[in-house]
Every structure is written in structure tokens, then in C-alpha cells.
């Protein structure tokens, strides 16, 4: 089995806020991320798939095909968007790096031919990233 990782980038704005909490509680828990005017990041997505090498093509997956899937399922939806206001899964869930990794997993699961989705890694910035392996 071979693990293959493809990167993609998107730039988005977001804020952290829970409507059922008071302003004070939101600011206490989320700090500067609770600014309702939002802020933004250049996100880097790394998608790792696992599979066997096709004896003819030598590929685990066709990288162009994988790139197109990431573009269609994730980048075209998230890039240059406000995650809270424009991306449906974050109407209710806080767009933390953890939740973004889980949401991207759900968007990609079952859509990659001939390989198993192994890991979704989302970098919010070079010093902070979250991994999701599809675990319950």
C-alpha cells in the first residue's frame, strides 16, 4: 500500500461565535477569534489517500483527477469565501480547524476512485494544523 498526499490552498475568512452564549462567554472562550467582523487565513489542505499501485499506470490515483476533485469539492466552495456566512456546514458548526478538517473529510469521502481516504490535514497557519482520520 502506498500513501499519496496532494496539497491545495484556499483563503477564507471566519469568526468563532456561538449564538446561544453571551457576548462575554464568546469572548472569554474564543478570544480575538470572536471578533464578529471576522478575520482570515491562507489555509493549506493536505489530503492523503492510500491504495495499491496500478500495475499498468504506476499510479495509486490519477493526480490530475485528485486535483480536480479537491478543486470541485473544496476549493471552489471555500476559497475567497466567508466560512460562517457562505459555506453551509458552518451555519451551525464553529469553523475551527478541527471542524474544517472533519467537513472536508465528509466532502471527499467516497469520491476518490481506486483509493481510500486516509487523512485530511488542514493548516490554518504554518504553526497550527488539525488532522482527521475519519475516527468516530
Amino acid at each position, binding site marked *: *500500500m502506498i*500513501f499519496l498526499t496532494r496539497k491545495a490552498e484556499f483563503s477564507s475568512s471566519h469568526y*468563532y461565535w*456561538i449564538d446561544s452564549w453571551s457576548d462575554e462567554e464568546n469572548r472569554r*472562550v*474564543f*478570544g480575538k477569534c470572536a471578533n464578529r467582523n471576522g478575520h482570515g487565513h491562507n489555509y493549506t489542505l493536505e489530503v*492523503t489517500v*492510500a491504495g495499491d499501485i496500478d500495475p499498468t499506470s504506476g499510479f495509486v490515483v490519477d493526480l490530475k483527477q485528485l486535483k480536480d476533485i479537491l478543486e470541485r469539492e473544496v476549493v471552489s466552495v471555500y476559497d475567497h469565501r466567508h466560512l460562517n456566512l457562505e459555506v453551509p456546514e458552518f451555519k451551525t*458548526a*464553529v*469553523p*475551527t*480547524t*478541527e*471542524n474544517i*478538517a*472533519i467537513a472536508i473529510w465528509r466532502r471527499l469521502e467516497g469520491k476518490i476512485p481506486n483509493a481510500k481516504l*486516509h*487523512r485530511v490535514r488542514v493548516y490554518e497557519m*504554518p*504553526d*497550527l*494544523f*488539525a*488532522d*482527521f*482520520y475519519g*475516527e*468516530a
Partner: protein
Amino acid sequence: MKAYLSRRYHFSASHRLHTDAFDEAQNRKVFGKCNNPYGHGHNYTVQVTLSGKVDPGTGMVCNLGDLDAFAQTNLLDRFDHTNLNTLDCFANSVSTTENLSVEIYRIFQNFTAARLEHVHIEETSNNSFDYLGDAIPAAGTL
């Protein structure tokens, strides 16, 4: 939903690889230029990986502000701009990055808001070290 959160911290410190168990010639032979009696230094990068259920309300494995505050007090305030050899944790062990990885793993075990999985330290851009306690890394996780 279980997720893994990784955060990178940076500090600069000096050290010297040397053990009293060896004579001078043996120290020089084993540790090479790292045995320079005047020491030398590195910009260390520490990458800490924690896991846990993502809180359905906050969307977090743990509060990053709490983790950063813990790291500031227990990692950066303790190690940044120090000579590692003068610290208590290296009183009886060589200040290799292997030993540093184990020490920093011990430190982050005291951060109880999430489960500590992995400490990865880059001593230079060419040397890095990983410590996972007793865990054996699963395929594709390192």
C-alpha cells in the same frame, strides 16, 4: 469525532553534548563538534500533537489559548534563551534532542485538556526527532 491538533512552538537555546562518564578524548570522539567546550546553539521547533473528541459546541479538541498559555509557562519561559546544560532536567543526562523530546513529552503530559500523542522536535532543518511515549506510530502517521 476524534481529531488531532498540532501546534508548533519555537525557542532558541545553547547546549553542549558531553558526559562525565567519558574522558575528554572519548567525548570528542563520540560527540564531535557538538562537544565544543564553549557550547553552540540552535533554533528549536517543537511540534506537539494532541487528540480528543471535538467538542460539539466549540468545535475544538482543546482551547488553543489554554494550550498556548501552558506552552508559554512550561516550555518557552523555561527553555528559550537558556543553556540547556544548566537546566535541572539535564543535570544527569546529555542535552541531546532525543532526551529533550522525552523531557518535553513529560511536560505536555501535564496539559490535561487533551490527550498527548506526539512530540516532534526539529533541532535544525536537517535533524528532527519524534517521541510518542510508548506508542508505536500507525502507518502513515509520522
